[in-house]
């Protein structure tokens, strides 16, 4: 026990003396948590629209102001010919062209029907889809407004209509950061665990201090525990700061689920990830090698975890990879507990799976560690 205490004391001393690593461990996750959710946002805003108005009537003006007032569109160009507007698309100044025909107002009132033309720049598929959909919706609204203006309200509707009332559960205001912040936090904790832990052990190899350690009668499990515990503690700390500091104060996310089961899951998850770090360190001799291997895994973990894109919409083979990714389970648990208020019984399968990961990574690492020394 005394040896372990000394190992831990030495490890913490070294971490706190490392002037370049310390900010990486403690400050960077916070900064990333502040920046990434703002950037990783699928809500499409600021769609540039070119409007070709051949009518110049009060009705066409009303339509245009309705579109601009929606907040999603920005009028980049107001021109008299479609060719002029299309030039704007070619120059990438606008994403959409709305053409209002001549006699738009007159025909709409007289003949009860009128056509509008929308051209969409579809290079960015998401933006094109959403932009087109928003615009359609706005025009329908506008159409309804005009109908109420001209058609006498009847006692009963002439035709039966279905009214849809919807309510958003768990994230009432569809706040995108509510979805992203818990996920990003889960990923940052993963980084601290796997990256820092593997680099730390490899550093001992690279500097040669492991030689000096190996000739002492130190027990292998003491050495490994001495390496894992500090990063376990740091992972817990970073997570708590991220959840209660940044998540609550900056984004106003109040976890509604059981904190006990969330932290229990986190402890187990960190053990699994530290095992991965240990495993990487047994396969590399220099920090550069460890960094490259860890980076490879981190990229896959990040992109295949359901953090940005839904796993359900991935192809079958990708789903398999996502299911072999420990980060997937942690992000799921985070969202379930923080947003949905899940308790232990809801995440018990996640517990089992992460337990499996922990045994797998640590077991492999210890086997390999024995073989090489």
């Amino acid at each position, binding site marked *: 026990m005394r040896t372990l205490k*000394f190992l831990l004391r030495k490890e913490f*001393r070294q971490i706190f003396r490392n002037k370049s690593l310390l900010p990486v461990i403690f400050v960077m996750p916070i900064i990333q948590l502040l920046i990434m959710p703002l950037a990783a946002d699928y809500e499409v805003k600021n769609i540039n629209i070119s409007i070709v108005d051949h009518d110049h009537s009060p009705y066409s003006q009303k339509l245009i102001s309705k579109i601009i007032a929606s907040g999603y569109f920005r009028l980049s160009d107001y021109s008299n010919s479609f060719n002029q507007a299309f030039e704007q698309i070619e120059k990438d100044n606008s994403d959409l062209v709305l053409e209002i025909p001549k006699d738009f107002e007159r025909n709409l009132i007289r003949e009860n029907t009128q056509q509008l033309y929308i051209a969409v720049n579809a290079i960015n598929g998401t933006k094109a889809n959403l932009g087109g959909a928003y615009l359609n919706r706005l025009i329908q609204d506008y159409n309804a407004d005009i109908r109420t203006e001209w058609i006498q309200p009847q006692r009963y509707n002439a035709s039966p209509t279905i009214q849809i009332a919807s309510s958003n559960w768990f994230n009432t205001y569809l706040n995108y950061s509510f979805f992203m912040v818990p996920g990003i936090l889960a990923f940052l904790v993963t980084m601290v665990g796997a990256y820092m832990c593997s680099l730390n052990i490899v550093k001992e190899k690279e*500097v040669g*201090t492991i*030689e*000096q*350690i190996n000739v*002492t*009668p130190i027990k292998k499990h003491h050495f490994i525990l001495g390496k894992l515990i500090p990063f376990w503690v740091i992972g817990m700390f970073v997570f708590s700061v991220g959840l209660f500091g940044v998540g609550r104060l900056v984004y106003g996310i109040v976890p509604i689920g059981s904190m006990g089961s969330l932290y229990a899951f986190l402890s187990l998850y960190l053990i699994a990830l530290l095992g991965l770090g240990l495993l990487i360190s047994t396969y590399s001799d220099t920090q550069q090698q460890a960094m490259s291997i860890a980076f490879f895994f981190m990229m896959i973990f990040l992109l295949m975890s359901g953090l940005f894109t839904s796993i359900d919409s991935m192809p079958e083979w990708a789903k398999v990879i996502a299911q072999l990714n420990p980060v997937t389970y942690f992000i799921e648990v985070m969202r379930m507990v923080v947003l949905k208020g899940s308790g232990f019984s809801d995440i018990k399968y996640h517990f089992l799976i992460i337990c499996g990961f922990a045994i797998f990574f640590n077991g492999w690492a210890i086997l390999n560690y024995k073989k090489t020394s």
Partner: protein
Amino acid sequence: MHDVVLDKIRKTYNKNSLVAVDNVSLSVNKGELFGLIGPDGAGKTSIFRILTTLLLPDGGNASVSGYDVVKDYKIIRNHVGYMPGRFSLYQDLSVEENLNFFATLFGTTIKENYDLIKEIYVQIEPFKTRRAGKLSGGMKQKLALCCALIHRPTVLFLDEPTTGVDTVSRKEFWEMLKRLKSQGITIMVSTPYMDEATLCERIALIQSGKILSINTPANVIAQFPQNLFAIKSTNMSGLLKDLRDFGNIESCNAFGEYHHITLSDESDATQHELKTYLESKQHENIVLQSTTPTIEDCFIQLMNNQDGGNSN
């Protein structure tokens, strides 16, 4: 009583393509200061790593303090001190923290064995709060020695402790080793510097993983088979070339101010013939005298012998 015994130890790298240690057998007596002398790449570090249980031999047996290096590695680790050639203490921990840390790993304290390291430690004690990485080369080495001694080892392995250290510190270091020896610690030290060999009680000359000779430094010199001559003239580089062209020359090596040569025929007539030969080659101020061989001469002679033996 032998404290270190190697019996036909063999170690290869790169799937047997590179033989680092080739059937090495030697033994070190209790309380002896034993030197392993050889150039870089001779296999010294591999032998040290096998004896300190960091490397498994591919063949043969070795024991330290009577314990087998493979089977009883755990016991050995309690009894040996190892100072690797490369400084491998924690550069970001202070002198005192390093010492404390290693004391704890060995389950002891600085206080308990302070008398053993005292003489060395007092020299670095004024800097005990300084980070180890910020120490000068000589001080780093003293700290490493303290850390290797902190658990009062019975056998101390020092791998090239004086490489890259200035002459004064080297001298001091050997003084320290002598004092440690007087405390009854068996010391095995490796060095590429031939001049340090005479400071050991017994030495093993090693080259390409093979032992050339094991003896006391005096005996190694006494076993030099021929008379050795020192020769110099005003044009030393030309002299070396011309000497090699002379028929009766057996070996000829640059050695500081003089060239050291051995002759196949040592008679006065041949010596005279050599002088006239050199004069005919326009060499001036020729001095030819008999000299006592150094360990380096012996090493080169043994090495050439072995190469000759191999090619036959």
